């Protein structure tokens, strides 16, 4: 069910993304920061799902609020002539790598467990 929803969402997103007109370059800067923040939320959600402490409300609020805050901060930085978006990118991308590391370790653990099990089965077979 969830997988289907994600696939349909991807297809719809691609279609809508191709239909809608492009935005001016100055605005695209903010959108990029928003995308990075949203991606960070997505990976954070996956990681928390692995940790078994996934909360839908936290995920959704993080997805939107992080993106909007990042955009606002970038705007503020533009007004102050400080590249705040750099800090936002560093934080978000750092967290993305963190979460990706958690996801990677989790699946590596699963893989090695399976292998161990296979070995044990084989051992038992040879023992027998």
């Amino acid at each position: 069910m969830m997988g289907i929803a994600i696939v349909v969402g991807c297809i719809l997103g691609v279609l809508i993304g191709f239909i809608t007109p492009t935005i001016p370059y100055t605005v695209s800067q903010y959108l990029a920061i928003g995308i990075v923040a949203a991606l960070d939320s997505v990976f954070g959600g996956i990681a928390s799902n692995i940790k078994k402490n996934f909360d839908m409300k936290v995920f959704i609020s993080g997805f939107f609020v992080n993106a909007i805050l990042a955009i606002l901060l970038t705007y503020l930085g533009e007004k102050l002539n400080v590249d705040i978006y750099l800090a936002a990118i560093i934080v978000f991308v750092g967290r993305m790598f963190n979460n990706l590391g958690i996801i990677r370790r989790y699946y590596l653990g699963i893989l090695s467990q399976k292998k161990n099990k296979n070995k044990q089965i084989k051992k038992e077979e040879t023992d027998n």
Partner: protein
Amino acid sequence: MNKKNINKKETLILSVTLGIITVVLVTSIFIQFRTVNESKELNLDTLRDDEMKTQIASYKSKYEETMEQYTENQNKIQEYNTAMSENAETTEIVDKELNQAKTLLGLTDVKGSGVIVTLTDTEEALYTYTADDLLQLINELKYAGAEAISINDNRIINLTDIAMISDNLIVMNGGNTRISSPYVVKAIGDQKYLTSTLSMKNSGYIDQMEANGMKIELEQKDNIEIKAYTGELDSKYMKEVE
């Protein structure tokens, strides 16, 4: 049963929210892709500062190149202009020379100071004026330095011939022009030389003619006009030696 229902409801809500979130995320990502792609094409409105800087730098170098070419072309144009004016000068000189040559040949109307010799046939004279008389007069005028001579307004040029066909009929210029008395011979040149040459005692032309009882008048005039030669100047046989 109830628990399962709740679970189903939860998963449905979860799926829908996840779907919406993916739609939002993927849409924004693709808009961004297209925006970035389009911005790679030169569009000054959507350029970033650093890109703007590089663009400005490249435009500057282009501008300098073009300026160099422009100045080069300007110099060339100036060269051409000077060449043209030089050409115009040479044409002027050539024109002047041509006019001079024409004047010397007798192809232009000229005026200046000189003498007018009028020869009139009279009954008291021993004979009427002959072509030889005219030729002699012209020769003497030339000897005295006449620059332009005409008989009855027919210009004497270097190829002019004067021939006698019969009594009272003298032709000039290959028989095309008939002249008769009175013969008005105009000559432009030094008045003193012309007069003194013609009126030398005894051997002079006037004395010679008057000795034969002919009527001849010499008149000095300051503003004599001599018409141009009106015939055609054509050479069939002679060619320039290179």
